[in-house]
């Protein structure tokens, strides 16, 4: 099965490990993630202002790209891309007046008709592939690996765009279980890491990282998994600041969920590009015999 | 308060009796109920209808033998009011008892004129008889005896009495604060004033009398506090009360003479009250001895509860006790304390309701919280 896939900026650069592992894992599951031709920036963060349509052009233009291929589905890996595209698609579907204005702005494009549905890859795994099928592909169960699934904000909030229960999402828990890992669940899984505050208020983000990770570690987690390159940066890179401020803090590796799938499927660990991580996951993986 | 000042010289008793004769002569009253002299020199309540016979009346006799005059008035007016106009001579405590009995519907004051008499105090009957036997005490000598400190032999209740002057009557025969050889007959009501005017008296006011009364009260209040203070210590608790009544023979004389004990049949003498005497056998066998006190003490405590709010502190209970138990010490104390709690003064006015006839939401806060 072929799926149109929207990578977004970061997956082509610092989150290449996310993309590579995802593409490989997908093909193992019989899915072909076909990159959306001529995709542009998703808009990064959804613009909330009711009077601001300019910022909706970028996401809608991507939807036009899908429409041009006579397709009506678009899959993303990055949580933020998912949120922005999804909300934009819903906005214009609900509000024909706004859609008309946007279409007028984009006179060089064909008019968007509002049919494209945006999905996150986790939804595809859950709803189309199924965890049963995934577990069948597992050759190296992640036995004894205690993982804290971190959802953050944009997969589950606002509730209209959530891919799962906004207060107690379980999709990644279930995925981890199908990979044979032990799930460490706590209520910090949906607490915001600080997102873009990381640029001018990195101390705030470091503090959130500390709160989230130390709670997970306290509950026994050895690693974290997530689906957002910004969360990844915050929870991974900012551990250096955390350790500086809290000497007792023990660093733990942060994985994209697709990396863990690749490991469990027994794929070449190269696709995981562990060199892009700030906290090196290899000692943990080696210790458990996964690489 | 206005009244008539009478010259008595050495003839106080005769002056009073002449005054009473004139009430009969002028047909202001048909009869006078007063203490009259008995052959032994004591006094007893009696009627005088003949103005010629008033010499037998002895209103100043410092003694109350038998029951209170209030009880006598109750006996003659309880069924129906007297038909003749009756002048009644009463001591201050008697009047207060009478007022209480009015509230309990035991006395009907219709056709009754109250003539109160000042009272320094009274001797125990036995003591009074002794004095009579020794010196045949004429009235004038009573005052002299008092001046020489004779009142140390008064009954305890009189020594601490706060009402030497009647607080409620039509007329009041007063000697306290009046110079020797004179008497002041005070009109307390319009009726009283009418009597004095009809008899042709010139009415005047005497303020120095109030001062003399105030002085007596000051002295007696101190004595009274001391007396009850000691009593409180002595009688404290059930133990104290039990031993207080050890020698009681349950004759119920105290009840018989009490003007406030007006029941037809005392609850404690009736079959409505029952205490199984066999119960004594079950009481505290560990200590080995059990005096059969309970029924006796229950009678006294019960009687105290019934009469304490209206007790007029006449002390007749104590005088009547054949066992010489100082009953006033206990009953007076209970009465004083209860009357304080309810802010009630028995005998003050017929309009004031006794505590047992009234429920006030704000009362007894310190007990019921």
């Amino acid at each position, binding site marked *: 099965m072929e799926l149109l896939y929207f990578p977004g900026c970061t997956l082509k650069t610092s989150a290449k490990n996310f993309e590579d592992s995802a593409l490989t894992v997908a093909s193992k599951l019989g899915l072909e993630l076909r990159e959306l031709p001529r995709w542009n920036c998703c808009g990064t963060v959804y613009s909330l202002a009711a009077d601001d349509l300019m910022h909706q052009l970028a996401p809608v233009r991507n939807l036009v790209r899908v429409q041009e291929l006579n397709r009506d589905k678009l899959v993303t890996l990055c949580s933020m891309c998912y949120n922005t595209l999804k909300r934009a698609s819903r906005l214009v579907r609900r509000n024909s007046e706004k859609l008309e204005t946007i279409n007028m702005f984009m006179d060089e494009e064909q008019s968007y008709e509002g049919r494209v549905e945006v999905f996150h890859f986790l939804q595809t795994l859950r709803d189309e592939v199924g965890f049963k099928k995934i577990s069948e592909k597992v050759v190296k169960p992640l036995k004894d690996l205690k993982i804290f699934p971190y959802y953050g904000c944009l997969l589950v909030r606002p509730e209209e765009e959530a891919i799962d229960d906004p207060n107690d999402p379980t999709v990644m828990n279930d995925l981890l279980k199908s990979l044979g890992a032990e799930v460490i669940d706590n209520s910090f899984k949906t607490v915001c890491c600080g997102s873009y505050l990381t640029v001018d208020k990195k101390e705030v983000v470091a503090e959130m990282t500390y709160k989230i990770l130390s709670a997970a570690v306290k509950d026994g987690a050895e690693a974290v998994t997530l689906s957002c390159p910004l969360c990844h940066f915050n929870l991974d890179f900012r551990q250096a600041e955390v350790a500086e401020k809290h000497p007792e803090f023990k660093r733990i590796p942060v994985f994209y969920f697709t990396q863990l799938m690749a490991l469990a499927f027994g794929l070449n660990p190269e696709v995981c590009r562990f060199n892009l991580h700030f906290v090196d996951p290899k000692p943990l993986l080696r210790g458990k015999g996964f690489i | 308060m206005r009244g008539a000042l009478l010259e008595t010289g050495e003839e106080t008793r005769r002056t009073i009796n002449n005054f009473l004769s004139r009430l009969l002569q002028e047909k202001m009253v048909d009869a006078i109920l007063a203490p009259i002299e008995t052959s032994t020199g004591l006094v007893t309540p009696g009627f005088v209808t003949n103005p010629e016979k008033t010499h037998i009346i002895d209103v100043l006799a410092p003694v109350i033998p038998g029951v209170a005059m209030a009880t006598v008035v109750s006996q003659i007016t309880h069924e129906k009011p007297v038909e003749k106009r009756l002048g009644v001579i009463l001591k201050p405590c008697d009047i207060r008892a009478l007022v209480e009995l009015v509230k*309990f519907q035991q006395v009907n004051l219709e056709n009754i004129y109250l003539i109160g008499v000042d009272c320094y105090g009274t001797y125990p009957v036995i003591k009074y008889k002794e004095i009579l036997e020794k010196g045949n005490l004429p009235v004038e000598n009573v005052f002299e005896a008092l001046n020489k400190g004779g009142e140390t032999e008064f009954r305890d209740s009189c020594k601490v009495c706060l009402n030497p002057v009647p607080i409620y009557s039509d007329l009041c025969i007063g000697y306290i604060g009046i110079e020797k050889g004179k008497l002041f007959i005070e009109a307390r009501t319009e009726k009283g004033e009418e009597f004095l005017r009809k008899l042709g008296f010139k009415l005047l006011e005497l303020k120095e009398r109030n001062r003399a009364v105030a002085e007596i009260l000051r002295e007696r209040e101190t004595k009274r506090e001391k007396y009850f203070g000691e009593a409180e210590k002595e009688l404290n608790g059930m133990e104290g009360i039990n031993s207080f009544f050890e020698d009681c023979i349950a004759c119920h004389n105290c009840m018989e003479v009490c003007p406030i004990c*007006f*029941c*037809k049949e005392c609850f404690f003498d009736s079959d409505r009250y029952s*205490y*199984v005497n066999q119960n004594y056998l*079950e009481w505290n066998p560990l200590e080995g001895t059990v005096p059969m006190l309970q029924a006796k003490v229950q009678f006294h405590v019960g009687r105290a509860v019934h009469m304490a709010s209206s007790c007029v502190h006449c002390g007749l209970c104590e005088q009547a006790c054949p066992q010489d138990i100082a009953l006033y010490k206990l009953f007076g104390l209970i009465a004083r304390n209860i009357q304080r709690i309810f802010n009630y003064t028995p005998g003050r006015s017929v309009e004031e309701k006794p505590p*047992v*006839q009234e429920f006030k939401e704000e009362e007894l806060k310190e007990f019921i919280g």
Partner: protein
Amino acid sequence: MIKVNERIGVFICHCGLNIAGTVNVEKVAEEISKCKGVVHAEHYIFMCSDPGQEKVRQTIKEKKLDGVIVAACSPDLHEHTFRSAAASAGLNPYRVEIANIREWVAWPHEGKGEEATEKAIKIIDAAIEKLRDNMALLPVEVPVTKKVLVIGGGIAGIQAALDCADAGLDVYLVERGQSIGGKMAQLSETFPTLDCPQCIETPKMTAVAQHPKIHLYAYSEIEDVNGYVGNFKVKIKRKPTFVDWDKCTGCRECMKVCPVKVPSEYERGIADRKAIYISFPQAVPNKAVIDAENCIRMKYGKGCGLCAKNCPSKAITFEGNGSIEEVKVGAIIVATGFDVMGVNSFGEYGYGKYKDVLDALQFERLLAPAGPTSGKVLRPSDGREPKEVVFVQCVGSRDPDNWHPYCSKICCMYIAKQAMLYKHAVPDGQAYVFYIDIRADGKGYEEFVHRAMTEDGVIYLRGKVGKIVEEGDKLRVYGVDTLTGRNVVIDADLVVLATAVEPSKGIDDLARKLRIQLDQDGWLSEAHLKLRPLESLTSGIFIAGAAQYIKDITDTVSQASGAAAKAIALLSRDKLEKEPIVATVDEEVCVGCGNCVSICTYNAVELDPELKVARVNEGLCEGCGACAATCPSGAIQLINNTKKQIFEMITALTRRD
């Protein structure tokens, strides 16, 4: 006193773990079974349950019991249950006694099992002593007058009267004002449906006037009440109207010519009425009265008389002293409603001093389409339309230190309504509400307040107003918004105070006549706040509406129908059975001191003037026992609670063994 062949059964209830968790019920049963006369003692988990009651019934029959003790909860709860059970097994119900070992023992002594068990035994022991002398009694029967008196002609009285009358009872409806209708008739619209009272109350008022079973006594007061449940005698005083109501047609020609203007009670003083008046256009009865205090002719006995000259039906007499009529009723419903606090209060707000500081009832009249301004919101001072209106809630309510401790309950809602109606009348104006918290606990109420906030933009400020000062033609309101923690100043054109609601004036006097109780705030006391809220403590007297405690219209009407149902149920019987636990007098012993007469709250004791002994009216006696306590000779006693029984109980409780 042990009687020969006494056969007492004792039933001890566990009440689940309520009793058995603390009291050793087995031991209690064992000890009690040793008591003299006790032939049966058992314990069971729930005595009040059907199987529990069945045990009692069975044992009475099998062991031929002549007395039953149930050791369980307060007699308030299940005395009736067990007496009925015993009666169905052929035992006289008054041969059943309850020993309260739950409220008296298990609950207060939780965790002290041994002592509690001992105390339970003593209490049961005492109950047995009492039971020995309990007489088998038959209920006292009293006849019933199938008529109802309703006091107060507001919406509560109207509803109660209509319900009773529809059930076929004769109803006397007494209203002290000129017209029925009460406070509801003064309202602009009602929350949360915004119905106008003219649309929903006036039809009911007309129904009252036309109902063949309702005898309306308007402009009348209760003079005196005697008697007892089923048999009340009530004197109703018709106040002099100085107008012959048989002739008056309600044409209002008199009002047109009367030269005297006085502040109208109906308009709450913001408009005038005449000295001869009918309160409002829809008044029932539609008959004029003369206010003698203000009428020139009545004051001086001569002059004026313009109304009489103008009266087409020659109805105006200037004469009459009113009249007193006596009616007999079986039940009474008190629906005297409420008043709102008047102008002698709240100096800090300039209430009564500044013309543009109104109370909420006055503002109702300003909003009312049929009010003095025809529904236009205009300031009393200069007739200008106010553009900024401040509403202040909890004025005098929830203020135990200065005024009333209670919540006036209706203000949150009517202020939301008034603010909303104001915004509808003045769309470019602004309404502000100072509140402590918002209590909107009825159907559709929360949504209604939400609507005022969201759709009508009423600004709610959480806090009280400290003071109001007149500044030019503005009222400067000094308040606080505790949410921002800042003091707030608003220059308002008009201020509306939600002044506290109080019991209707004169309720204390009426309560005395009815021999019913008031609570500490002056509202009528109900028999039980939770379970008997419609009844007073005097049987046959019911409470409806705000007289019990302030209510909105929904609750008032519900309660009025409830009170009516109570009265209808009571009067559906031909004879009433009354508890036979009443006082009796031993005439041989009674000395006629009158203590009992004086102390009886129910006027149930009288002195026989001939024999000088006390007599008890069993119909009136509620069995409270106050007379027995005050009688020195024990001549008056309460049946089955004699002094002897009490002595025996005390003996049992104090016995040392």
